[in-house]
């Protein structure tokens, strides 16, 4: 367990260094909660980027190299940020007294705590109960660890040797990083996902509080933490939760940009969209829609800065994605034989329409079946119906545009790329995971509509 804690602290330290640097450049004032939790996710992205670049230059890494890097950062951080730069203003975290004044919100808080405890203890002590966890992520992490990095010919390996060789490598690489501290221990590494989940709850709360207020923030994390689809992807090692985290955070910072028009939010958001591309290929859809949505927003509101802002956002995302894009391109990699981006035909899409009833039935089960937490979806659908006028009013239309376009892009992508005869089974297994990708954005939309109705008094 000590190794896992050390690994997490190392991610945090690298993240703090990078986040402080970004915040300094952007003159971004932050709270301690936002800094520490965002640093964890930026740290994750930076470590993955760094490990992959080491592979690209044929450098193999070991625990000693990591310690040297961390020591260097430990020494440089105070020198850079205390001596040479003015202090960043921090807000201290206080135990919110109102929480205990309101029984309803106290209950929400306790349910979240129970949910966290259940998720942490529900994780089985080995990577099991999910075939994809082992086939796609854990196996690659084991290979990388025992080879001190990505083997030279890894991307030429066939699917018989390693499952889905073309899947983005964020999760296997971050598991490898943890193994460097713990030794090969696939029992302890399974605790990684609940920890990602807990850190996300902190930053989700902090950002929702900043955008709305404390009560909306608590309601937001309550809805997220108690969603059964979220619980399921947290209890196994799957990239879907990490994709959801990166996309949700990027989306919220993008919302701050829409609200205040401040450039700094656009940079933070673009970086998160960029890192999300290392989690799952679906992230391309979110990033693409972000650029399109940004284009329309800037065209209507910042015409003189349209191309500058758009180019910067695109450049950041592109740079984050470039090493992986080039690797895939030069190795002619496909995700799996079932989902092959290089074979996209219109005929395939027409044939896959036959799977539409299966998809709709899956959606019905996920949204309305009794075993799932369906109150959220019912509240959301009701809010959308009752407040439909708001969806396209003023800046709200960009929120709606983003969500509708990403859903449509997900659907169309799978209609086009799922190979014939496999779309049915892919949709059955993947629909719950797709819903998870959108949950953060949906919760934000719901809170937005609720705030306008003044259902919860500020």
């Amino acid at each position, binding site marked *: 367990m000590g190794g896992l804690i050390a690994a997490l602290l190392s991610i945090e330290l690298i993240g703090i260094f990078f986040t402080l640097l970004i915040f300094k450049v952007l003159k971004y004032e932050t709270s301690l909660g936002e800094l520490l939790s965002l640093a964890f996710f930026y740290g994750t992205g930076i470590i993955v980027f760094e490990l992959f670049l080491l592979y690209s230059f044929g450098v193999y890494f070991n625990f000693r190299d990591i310690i040297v890097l961390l020591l260097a950062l430990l020494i440089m951080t105070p020198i850079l940020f205390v001596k040479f730069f003015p202090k960043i203003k921090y807000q201290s975290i206080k135990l919110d007294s109102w929480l205990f004044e309101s029984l309803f919100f106290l209950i929400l808080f306790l349910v979240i705590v129970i949910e966290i405890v259940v998720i942490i*203890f*529900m*994780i*089985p*002590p*080995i990577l*099991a*109960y999910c*075939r994809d966890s*082992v*086939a796609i992520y*854990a*196996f690659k992490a*084991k*290979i990388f660890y*025992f080879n001190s990095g990505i083997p030279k010919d890894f991307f030429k390996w*066939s699917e*018989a*040797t390693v*499952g889905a060789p073309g899947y983005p490598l964020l999760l296997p690489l971050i598991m490898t990083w943890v193994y460097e501290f713990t030794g090969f221990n696939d*029992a302890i590494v399974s605790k990684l996902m609940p920890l990602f989940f807990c850190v996300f709850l902190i930053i989700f709360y902090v950002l929702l509080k900043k955008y709305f207020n404390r009560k909306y923030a608590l309601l937001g994390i309550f809805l997220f933490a108690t969603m059964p689809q979220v619980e399921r992807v947290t*209890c196994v090692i799957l990239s879907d939760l990490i994709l959801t985290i990166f996309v949700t955070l990027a989306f919220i910072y993008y919302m701050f940009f829409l609200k205040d028009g401040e450039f700094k939010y656009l940079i933070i958001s673009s970086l998160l969209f960029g890192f999300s591309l290392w989690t799952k290929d679906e992230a391309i859809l979110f990033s693409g829609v972000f650029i399109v949505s940004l284009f329309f927003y800037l065209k209507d509101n910042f015409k003189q800065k349209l191309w500058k802002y758009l180019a910067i956002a695109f450049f950041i995302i592109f740079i984050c994605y470039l090493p992986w894009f080039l690797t895939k391109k030069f190795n002619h990699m496909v995700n799996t034989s079932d989902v092959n981006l290089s074979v996209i035909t219109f005929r395939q899409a027409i044939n896959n329409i036959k799977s539409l009833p299966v998809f709709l039935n899956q959606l019905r089960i996920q949204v309305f079946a009794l075993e799932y937490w369906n109150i959220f979806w019912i509240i959301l659908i009701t809010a959308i119906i009752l407040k439909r006028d708001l969806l396209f009013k003023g800046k709200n239309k960009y929120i709606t545009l983003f969500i509708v376009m990403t859903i449509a892009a997900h659907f169309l992508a799978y209609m086009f790329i799922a190979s014939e005869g496999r779309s049915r089974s892919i949709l059955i297994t993947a629909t719950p995971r797709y819903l998870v990708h959108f949950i953060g954005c949906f919760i934000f939309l719901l809170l937005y509509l609720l705030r306008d109705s003044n259902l919860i008094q500020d």
Partner: protein
Amino acid sequence: MEHPLTGYLNSYADSENKRHILGAELYNFLIFCKVNIPQDASYDYYSATQDKKDNEALVYARYFLYPLRRIVSDPDYKIYYRSDPLNESGYKLFKTFRDFGVILKKEQ
């Protein structure tokens, strides 16, 4: 499928967990393979049927057997679990494990 919490509360040792997931029979056979096949060799794995359960067993077996590397074309060893070896030219019997596991080795 057994609830994951059961496994956690029982606090199995690591080997016990793997035995629990793979089933004692397959687990013991894979241990046998790992001990007897050189670590830098390649293998292919065959089981009786190609149903979902066998496919999952293959995924766990591939994970468990690494650094042995599975390839389908011309592997050094062929592992048969609850499946009769085909009349493979160029391969000879290497080891057998009880009445359900067979390993063939490529002839030099």
